[in-house]
């Protein structure tokens, strides 16, 4: 029998807000975190806007020691602030450096899509090419290794269970939650810090820009650039940031007597094998439907119990096929289709952090009984038009909101779907 897993803490560093209350406020009011990024002009990018969390360096100075900061690139700063916030939100104190106690029953799965490529671009490549290897110093490896952020977090918080990093492109953050919940469910850990982080760097965004999958039409009006579900969607807006969820066995949470935000009811992970139209960059529609169906089966609920879909919905040409997949998998008509929204409309596409930042949005919606608006889609895409009534353009109060399904689909034809339910005693 699988143990029940609940969420007892969260931290978020998003382009439109940092911290849970500010993030909820930004989500409710439809506040965009997309801004013009001057260096993208200079470097002649097609897309010159992005989502970058604001004021992080000043915050990081409050959170971390000087020597820790010397080894923390943007992805580390975002991820570690979010992890520390999730930890204290869950009712734990930050341990002192000279306290040798280890939290053997707490681990971490903190993923990244791209990793510390800003460190590689700014430091490693130029210095190595100049023959200055010995001048790189001791902090390069920990900033570029895939598990760098989870490794740093384990030291900040004295974690002693499995500490690892997952990577599955844009489904990374959602996958991390499913992986961590699975470990707790199987009785291998009591608590897991799960989520994703992605740095702010033109080196990360360049490859996507060259693929022409980024939005190029709204450089002059950044807040309107991220347009999921819209007829005028022209590609995604790159984002960055982090979110971490503190997952906990129900027994542990009840024993500690802490606040429970929501339950992780179930989830599913799969891959389309690059078949049936799927490829490195496009999803196999069969696998998407299968992943949604498996998540619902895993959660042990009926399709009709889904109140809100927080989609992957990036503002590329894939949005209409994603909506069609939801309608198919949920056997929903335009009349019965759940509310659907895209957090990316406000924060852009956070890549490896997307699923985590958007899952925090889901939990905040469950806590607050509302669906956040999906902005910039007043002109709903013609193929999505039948479901237009399901898209909130303003925050929609949903006092009875109980169950949200969150999806993440990624390059490599990989899919992740997780289902959250509001916690009621």
């Amino acid at each position: 029998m699988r143990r029940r897993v609940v969420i007892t803490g969260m931290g978020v560093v998003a382009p439109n807000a940092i911290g849970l209350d500010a993030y909820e406020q930004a989500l409710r009011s439809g506040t965009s975190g997309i801004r013009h990024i001057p260096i993208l002009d200079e470097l002649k990018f097609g897309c010159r806007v992005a989502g970058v969390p604001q004021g992080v360096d000043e915050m990081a100075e409050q959170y971390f020691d000087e020597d820790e900061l010397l080894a923390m690139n943007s992805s580390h700063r975002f991820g570690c602030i979010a992890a520390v916030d999730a930890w204290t939100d869950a009712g734990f104190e930050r341990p002192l450096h000279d306290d040798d106690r280890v939290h053997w029953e707490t681990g971490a799965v903190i993923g990244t899509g791209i990793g510390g490529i800003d460190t590689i671009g700014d430091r490693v490549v130029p210095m190595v090419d100049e023959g200055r290897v010995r001048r790189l110093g001791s902090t390069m490896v920990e900033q570029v290794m895939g598990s760098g952020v989870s490794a740093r977090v384990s030291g900040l918080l004295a974690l002693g269970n499995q500490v690892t990093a997952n990577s599955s492109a844009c489904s990374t953050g959602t996958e991390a939650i499913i992986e961590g919940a699975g470990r707790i469910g199987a009785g291998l850990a009591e608590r897991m810090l799960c989520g994703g982080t992605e740095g702010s760097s033109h080196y990360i965004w360049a490859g996507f820009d060259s693929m022409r999958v980024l939005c190029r039409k709204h450089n002059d009006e950044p807040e309107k650039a991220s347009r999921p579900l819209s007829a005028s969607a022209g590609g995604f807006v790159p984002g960055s940031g982090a979110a971490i969820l503190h997952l906990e066995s129900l027994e542990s949470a009840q024993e500690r007597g802490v606040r429970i935000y929501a339950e992780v009811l179930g989830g599913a992970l799969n891959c389309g094998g690059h078949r049936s139209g799927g490829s490195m960059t496009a999803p196999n529609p069969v696998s998407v439907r299968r992943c949604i169906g498996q998540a619902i089966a895993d959660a042990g609920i009926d399709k009709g119990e889904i109140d809100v879909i927080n989609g992957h919905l990036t503002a590329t040409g894939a949005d209409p096929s994603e909506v069609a997949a939801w309608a198919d998998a949920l056997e929903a008509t335009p009349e019965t289709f759940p509310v659907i929204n895209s957090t990316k409309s406000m924060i852009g596409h956070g890549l490896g952090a997307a699923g985590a930042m958007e899952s925090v949005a889901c939990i905040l919606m469950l806590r607050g009984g509302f669906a956040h608006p999906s902005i910039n889609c007043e002109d709903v895409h013609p193929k999505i038009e039948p479901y237009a009534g399901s898209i909130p353009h303003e925050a929609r109060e949903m006092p009875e909101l109980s169950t949200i399904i969150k999806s993440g689909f990624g390059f490599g034809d990989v899919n992740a779907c997780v289902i959250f339910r509001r916690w009621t005693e």
Partner: protein
Amino acid sequence: MARDETFGKVMEIIGRYAKNKDAIEGATEDTNILEDLKVNSARLVDVILDFEDEFDIEVDDEDADAVNTVGDAVTLIEAKLA
């Protein structure tokens, strides 16, 4: 440069990496960088690089390996500057 001036600059650099902030205050030339100030051993590489930048010197690996106390660092730097 006067030795105490060098000492001050050395401590400023090492202080960035010291986990034991309390020990910085009363540090002397006999203070051990790893054991007393609790600098992570991997970070000694960065401390040496910072010395190179601050004093415009070059420190080879053998010299760097011989630095255990704050005084060792001051002596090494003074010798390079002489």
